[in-house]
């Protein structure tokens, strides 16, 4: 644990964050926040079927990486991936349309909320089976290394994911091959309903294990977009420069339940309230005001994002349902699903 106190130093040498970047960090956090809230509303209207896992409260992490990454970098997300997908510039109607099972959805309704993907924007998929995407992200990083493109792969996952085998294999593999991949553990204190502390041998499920892969321990406040941004920049830079992988543990909290079905009753009293005070979007706004941004500027941004979400919602609602005839399309590269001649 002594190593973890050192972690903040890694951000020490980095440049200050410019005003434009700060505003972009705010704007992006708002986009994720408002869009997730809209997704929640659409549920209540029964316009979204199936399940859904919101990132409410965790937006600073996705936003910081969204701003820090190069357009051709790769993102790998989990089922809780709406925010990370949007943060790379995927179309909002594409996201909402997919949740609603419409033709305009990123996956035409085939993937659903847990599998958002937008290859054109570098979003290489959302994976719903815990741990699988860590080695896959390593593979994309390997490909970038092999092709010499200086692309970086960023892979997001939760605290609970650190206890599955694929985590271990991916970390060791990536370090041995010195791959340009950044592993980002969003520690929101819970797996589904079980506190991570009840099922994990160490206090910090990711950073206390970094040394097992010869990596420095990095702990960061996942609700602080600035700190996240600087940490992201450092890790991405390191990867791009051939310095190999990083493992970042960002502490945060999800405001809603694990998924649509979860009222979150397992939370001790007062826990949610405490974390609501640390709401990344609210606290970032306060910081911007302190840093000399004026209220009308921020209101403009807020209104702009509201309009964007409304427009995306309208487009998605207006979009047609997928065609039943398309069900048996795109199993194979030739577009078909034929397993026989």
């Amino acid at each position, binding site marked *: 644990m002594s190593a973890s106190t050192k972690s903040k130093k890694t951000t020490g040498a980095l440049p200050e964050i410019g005003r434009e970047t700060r505003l972009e960090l705010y704007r992006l956090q708002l986009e994720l926040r408002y869009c997730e809230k809209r997704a929640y509303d659409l549920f209540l209207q029964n316009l979204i*079927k199936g399940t859904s896992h919101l990132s409410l409260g965790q937006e600073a992490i996705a936003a910081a990486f969204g701003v820090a990454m190069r357009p051709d970098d790769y993102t790998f997300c989990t089922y809780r991936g709406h925010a990370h997908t949007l943060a790379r510039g995927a179309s909002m109607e594409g996201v909402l349309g997919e949740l609603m099972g419409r033709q305009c959805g990123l996956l035409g309704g*085939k993937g659903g909320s847990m599998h958002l993907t937008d290859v054109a924007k570098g979003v290489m998929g959302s994976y719903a*089976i815990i741990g699988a995407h860590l080695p896959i992200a390593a593979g994309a990083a390997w490909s970038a290394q092999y092709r010499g493109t200086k692309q970086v792969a960023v892979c997001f996952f939760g605290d609970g994911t650190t206890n599955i085998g*694929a985590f271990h294999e991916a970390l060791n593999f990536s370090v041995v091959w010195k791959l340009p991949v950044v592993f980002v553990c969003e520690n929101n204190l819970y797996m589904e309903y*079980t506190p991570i502390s009840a099922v994990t041998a160490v206090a910090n499920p990711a950073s206390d294990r970094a040394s097992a892969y010869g990596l420095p321990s990095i702990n960061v406040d996942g609700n602080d977009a600035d700190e996240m941004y600087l940490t992201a920049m450092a890790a991405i830079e390191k990867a791009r420069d051939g310095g190999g992988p990083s493992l970042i543990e960002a502490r945060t909290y999800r405001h809603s339940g694990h998924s649509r079905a979860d009222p979150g009753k397992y939370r001790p009293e007062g826990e949610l309230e405490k974390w609501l005070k640390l709401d990344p979007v609210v606290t970032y706004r306060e910081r911007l005001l302190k840093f000399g941004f004026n209220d009308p500027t921020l209101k403009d941004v807020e209104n702009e994002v509201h309009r964007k979400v409304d427009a995306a919602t309208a487009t998605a609602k207006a979009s047609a349902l997928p065609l039943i005839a*398309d*069900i048996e399309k795109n*199993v194979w590269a030739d577009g078909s699903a034929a*397993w026989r001649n």
Partner: protein
Amino acid sequence: MAELTYRDAVAAAIAQEMKRDESVVFLGEDVAAAGGVFKATVGLLEQFGPKRVRDCPISEQAILGAAMGAAMTGLKPIAEIMFSDFLAVCWDIVANEIAKIRYMTDGQVSMPLVIRTANGAGSRFGAQHSQAVENWAMMIPGLKVVAPAFPADVKGLLAAAIRDPDPVLFFEQKSLYPMKGEVPDGEYVDQLGKAKVLRQGKDVTIVALALMVHRALDAAAILEKEYGISATVVDVRSLVPLDTQTILTEVAKTGRLVTIEENPRLCGWGAEIASIAAEECFWDLDGPIHRITTPHIPLPAADLLEDNTIPSVERIVREIRQQID
């Protein structure tokens, strides 16, 4: 007889067996304090305490490995794998270890354990949370495989699985969890390896499993009423051991066999049954054997797409009419 949901029948069976046998323990992810993500095990922690009902990390290999190690040293573990799709992350423990150790050790090691898992489509969860994978399990020598369609069978067959000295994969169809049905009161234990004839007909024998049993029954009713086609419906219930006697007897009576599988087409359990019928009651068959399956594709997520992918009542009616006409 009380009315129970399919979901509550799970907890009822586990509680019944935990009460009578202290060597029965239960482990899984979010199963204890939270009562399971499908709420199928609510109340067990309260009733049997944290020593016997245990929450686990997201470590499916460790969960099933622990269950296996416990089973070979005197306990009778029930392990939950939350969604059957996740069997893939611990498939080595299931297929190479649990299934084989008794044989490899020439009978030295016993493996009395149950793996319960939520199987199948209908919840719009997409391709990684909706698969029907009962054929994955049937394929592996050394595993028994059960998939109930009714709350009473959930209770009776799960209790039987827990008492069975061999490893049993117990597939609960997740969209059946809210379904209600009569369940015998008091201690209730059924028998593995017995199919049930739910309806007797003359023209065709429909063999189905789990969710598909309900669709088969609905289709049979429509076929009878609207088209005058009279169908036998057999609920397989247990893929291993397989009640070939009942199936072959019923096929022989009608001369026609149609299987209805939720698993994707290739190497589904229906293929196995079709191949048995094509060999053993070939001369009783009056026409081709027909399989109705989910097409051989990953499952799409959107409700409209999902509903048009797994076999529907309309499709069953349509295809059986085409077969018979």
